[in-house]
């Protein structure tokens, strides 16, 4: 099984719902974003780009690209970054030594570091700690790859919502997208929705020249 994601940029309205819902569901501390959405070619979000009356506004949501040839996993000295059974890249928070080599390796800038204690930062800014179903907060499995409060000094990033997908549910961003622009499923299964979209529509992946083989596909707008 190789789970991947397809994002239809034709349907993306740049509302940032996926970014926000990700932040809440995964209990991200302030300043940390596993998923971010920007307007392509523009400094300001939701500002059109173009000239001679040809203006357009296209968005680009970016989270971990779940590469098949992941630069981050290859450089991780302790094997804290590893590929799970569904092809998702996960971080074992108890093995991460915080060397930040993965930050230097990842071409997509999706890695997030806990520069300070995330729990304290959340309480100080929001007054509460959100996210994670109750049964995911404790126990060994929860501690290794997903936990409501990471330690300070470890790396974190999108896990395709491992706490949900391991239970057969969809990632929070897929469920929350108001434009239904996000699709999640098995890339090895030719009958899955994601495989069909990739087979029939014009797709691209980010920075293919680096040879990272991402499992996140973008359907270009206008295709």
């Amino acid at each position, binding site marked *: 099984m190789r789970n991947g994601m397809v994002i239809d940029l034709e349907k993306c309205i740049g509302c940032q719902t996926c970014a926000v819902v990700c932040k809440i569901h995964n209990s991200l501390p302030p300043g940390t974003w596993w998923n971010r959405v920007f307007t392509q070619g523009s400094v300001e979000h939701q500002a059109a780009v173009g000239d001679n009356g040809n203006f357009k506004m*296209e968005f680009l949501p970016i989270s971990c690209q779940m590469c098949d040839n992941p630069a981050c996993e*290859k450089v991780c000295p302790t094997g804290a970054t590893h590929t799970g059974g569904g092809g998702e890249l996960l971080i074992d928070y108890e093995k991460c030594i915080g060397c930040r080599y993965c930050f230097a390796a990842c071409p997509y800038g999706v890695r997030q570091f806990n520069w300070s204690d995330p729990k304290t930062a959340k309480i100080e800014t929001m007054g509460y700690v959100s996210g994670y179903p109750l049964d995911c907060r404790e126990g060994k499995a929860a501690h290794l790859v997903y936990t409501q409060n990471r330690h300070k000094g470890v790396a974190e990033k999108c896990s395709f919502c491992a706490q949900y997908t391991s239970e057969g549910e969809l990632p929070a961003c897929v469920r929350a997208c108001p434009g239904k622009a996000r699709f999640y499923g098995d890339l090895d299964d030719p009958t899955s929705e994601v495989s069909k979209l990739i087979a029939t529509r014009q797709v691209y992946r980010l920075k293919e020249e680096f040879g990272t083989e991402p499992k996140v596909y973008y359907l270009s707008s206008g295709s």
Partner: protein
Amino acid sequence: MMHSYQRLSRSGRALVGLGLGLCAIGLFSWIMQLTNGLEVTHMQNAFSWGLYIAAFAFFVGVAAGGMIISSSIYVFNVEKLKPFSRIASLSAFGCILAAGVMVLLDLGSIQNIFFLFLTPNLMSPLLWDVCVVTAYLIITFLSVYMQMLPEWQKDGFFLAAWTKKRPAEEVQAFSKKWSRRVALVGLPFAVLIHTVTALIFATQVSHHWWNTAVLPPDFVAMAVASGSALVLIICMFTVGKRGFAEHADAFNIMAKVVAGALVVHFFFTLIELLLNAWNGSTQGQELVHILFNEYAALYLAELIFPAIAMIMFFMRRFSYNRPALLIGSILVIVGAFAHRMMLLYPAFNEPALSLNVAGASIKPWVVPLSTGRPDLAGAFFSTSFAYVPSLLEWGVTMLPFGIALTVIAGTITFFKLISEK
């Protein structure tokens, strides 16, 4: 002779005191960092390696250079340098110890360090580096130990306790035989540590500035230059003003080694610059802009300081002159440090994730990265970041500097390191 050693012992003790003071500052700063997390530094997600990694690469460089000098003395039988082979080994040992400590101080979660041994990832160049740096630490220690054995036997130093009942000639012969053997192993390892450290960077395809086959050989060239410059400073300090004339030929050789290595370094640097400038792509232009505009001061320091030293060291007028050798060596070492800092700026300010968007006025469009640091002026996303190390970062960096100074100055002050020809 006696007089010059007494002089040394006073200033040597002062240096040991300074070294211990730096260690204290470093330890205090590190405890602050452990308590608060790496937020005490000015690094952020988009600029995730800073002063610590630059200092690490710097120490690895000077350490490699020390052993290359010391081993060459044995391997190529350079008579005139023989009195200084112990100092060269000691310099290598002190600096690699500092490098090892430095990289540990950079870790966010040092408490998980044992997973390096429990579940090592053999693909990671960082793991290769851990292995070669550890091996090098052992080799340089053995090199110092084997060469110092006869002295330590005379002094009754505890590390040589096992030689107490043995005749001095036997220990001398043992020391000679094993010093040579360690030197033979040490030379390839000295080249290897810097090659592997360079590979940490050179393997990364997403950073154009690092991902070049010229980086490892250039690292080695810079290592020979900066390492030899440090050995030169330590040797001149040890023999003092009075001993200078006696060893002037040896210092001239070291200066020529520094200058020769710099020629190779500048050759590589110029080819790199030429390829980027000639290429004419936005990426190449961006790089030239970063080097000669945004970070021009630092980059010019990297180029000009060693260039001045190189020219000086090739001239007889300067290469036999004590103050000139001292100033030149310091210029090389400062230049080497700037070189290590400049490893980071062009790499992190030339973002990997840039896209060419049709119709957009900014080309290429750089996808902003989250900072992870809301405390830094409330910025959540940024495309580039002018990193300046925090005061506490400098404080933490004083620990490896203090350790190297204490070990090197301490050994020179309390033992006789200049061996007779």
